[in-house]
């Protein structure tokens, strides 16, 4: 065992920001690792990468990745990213944020970004609750779950995110758990090679908060649940992919090609611009 060597992925991280703030067993680090892995395998030009995140534990990711990054207000990552991507379509704009940020306060922005099919790549880390604020019930909290704001058990039906994304028009939709690191990494690569709006949901352990209230006190226990319940059911009907304690349908659900919004917009712009120039001269 040698120690001096640097970790092969250290170049993708901001040394001064490490170690990250995440708890023991938190899946965010795994997702960060998979993302770095994907960047490494694709040898992506980091100068052209912009990572945007919202508020929440995973929101810190933007600060950890050694590329241009922006940490927006709660829920607005996608709206901000829309401006970034349209203003400079050359950029690979990646939104990494949480379920609460993207689907509660930011839900409206999500469905519209997907509807426009703007070429933003969304990686939603779903920890089933609001972690950073201490474990409140959120848009993905499973029915019956105990949280600090559903002390008698959650009676709100959770979103089925892959169904929502597919219905909203995403050209790539996948769901994995932090146990599926290889497939998640491949999925991220696939997403980064696509043009339109892409969405990956990653089910991620929150042992310290969600787990503690729901009889899964360690990351290993939550991963154990993923292992037990996960069923790879690629390209099955996303509407049937609800997450239940017994079954977590994972896999790729949508992978289609559609002209991206920025492409259509900029083609239109250059056409109109040309015509306008002729008029003038």
């Amino acid at each position: 065992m040698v120690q001096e060597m640097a970790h092969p992925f250290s170049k993708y991280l901001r040394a001064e920001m490490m170690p990250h703030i995440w708890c023991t067993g938190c899946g965010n680090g795994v997702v960060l690792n998979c993302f770095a892995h994907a960047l490494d395998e694709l040898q992506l030009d980091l100068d052209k990468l912009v990572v945007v995140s919202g508020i929440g534990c995973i929101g810190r990711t933007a600060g950890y990745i050694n590329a241009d990054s922006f940490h927006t207000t709660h829920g607005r990552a996608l709206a901000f990213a829309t401006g970034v991507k349209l203003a400079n379509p050359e950029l690979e704009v990646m939104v990494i944020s949480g379920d609460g940020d993207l689907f509660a306060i930011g839900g409206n922005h999500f469905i519209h970004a997907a509807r426009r099919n703007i070429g933003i790549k969304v990686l939603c880390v779903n920890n089933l609750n609001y972690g950073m604020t201490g474990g409140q019930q959120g848009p993905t909290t499973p029915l019956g779950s105990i949280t600090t704001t559903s002390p008698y058990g959650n009676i709100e039906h959770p979103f089925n995110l892959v169904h929502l994304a597919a219905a909203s028009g995403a050209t790539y939709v996948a769901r994995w758990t932090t146990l599926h690191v290889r497939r998640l990494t491949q999925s991220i690569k696939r997403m980064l090679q696509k043009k339109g709006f892409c969405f990956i949901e990653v089910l991620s352990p929150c042992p310290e908060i969600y787990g503690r209230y729901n009889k899964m006190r360690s990351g290993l226990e939550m991963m154990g649940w993923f292992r037990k319940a996960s069923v790879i059911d690629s390209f099955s009907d996303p509407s049937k992919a609800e997450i239940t304690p017994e079954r977590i349908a994972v896999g790729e659900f949508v992978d289609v090609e559609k002209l991206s919004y920025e492409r259509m917009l900029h083609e239109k712009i250059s056409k109109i611009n040309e015509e306008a120039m002729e008029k003038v001269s």
Partner: protein
Amino acid sequence: MPKVKNILTGAHFLNGDVACAEAALVAGCRFFAGYPITPATEIAETLSMRMPELGGIYIQMEDEIASLAAVIGASYSGLKAMTATSGPGFSLMQENIGLAVMTEAPCVIVDVMRAGPSTGQPTMPGQQDVMQAKWGSHGDYGIIALTPSSVQEMFDLTVEAFNLSETYRVPALLMADEIVGHMWEKVVIPPMDKVRIVNRKKPNVSPEEYKPFLPDDDLVPPMACFGEGYHFHATGLTHNESGYPRTSSSEDQTRLVNRLCEKIQKNADKIVRVEEVMLDDADVAVVAYGIVARAALSAIKKAREKGIKAGLLRLITLWPFPEEHVAKVAQHVRAIAVPEMNCGQLVREVERAARETPVTFLSKLGEEPHTPTEILDAIRRAA
């Protein structure tokens, strides 16, 4: 890069919103994100047609929150960007005004003020957002707000707003009112080369050395943009000069927030603009802005005809508040009258600056702004 020959120049008969839109193009704005709202909609409509002609981007977002967020994003991607709205939308934008302030994103927000609160009277004028302009978002910060009284000014101040915003890396607000927005007047647009246009400072250090929030002497940090290889981080959290979160250090909090206020205050003299009319010998001064200032102008003329030495201090800059100018006037007038189309907002700032000098306030709400006679009566009473 698309050429920009087809910029409007020369004399034109325009309405305020259109003038604002054309001015944005002159100023170099190439990104507009907005959401339809009376009485600002014509700005969006005009730009949806004109932006592409100049190779710029128009997008209609799902709401005003998103609109400003997108504007900030575009700004960080290196484009001059703006949005336009009215009271209800302006309220929604407050969140991201805070973000723009915190991340020092140059951008222009036009608020064509209508009658509030809430949905109020969408097609009626008002000056009810002028305090929100300064205090609307939580926390302390400095901001720039300009207010036009004519369609020509709608044009000039839009250009000015972009210049200031780029100079100080701060959101610049154009606080117009429904009447100016919808009024048709002659506008003279100088040729491009005669228009002063300012662009943001770029860093002159290597990416390794670059600290995105390390200010120069003017307290404004040079701004790198996404995709330029600087690999920098920006956040709405309190951050250090490298841009990294400092969520528990009071030292960083103090340094950052003070600078955000001071970069405006300390540069106030370079920012503030007012118009002084017949103030040298005045006994009564009227302090007004926007459409009301035009009624005030004829009021002081009428007053002079009646032998009352009245003068007008027209505020062009609302924020930073033209403190010195008001104080100076206050020193040699007996009284100050402040007509506003609200229940008394900026008058409080006037009172503060005027110290002992008595200040009377004229409120007017609804369809009609103050008539010159109404202001004249106020002058009479004050004299």
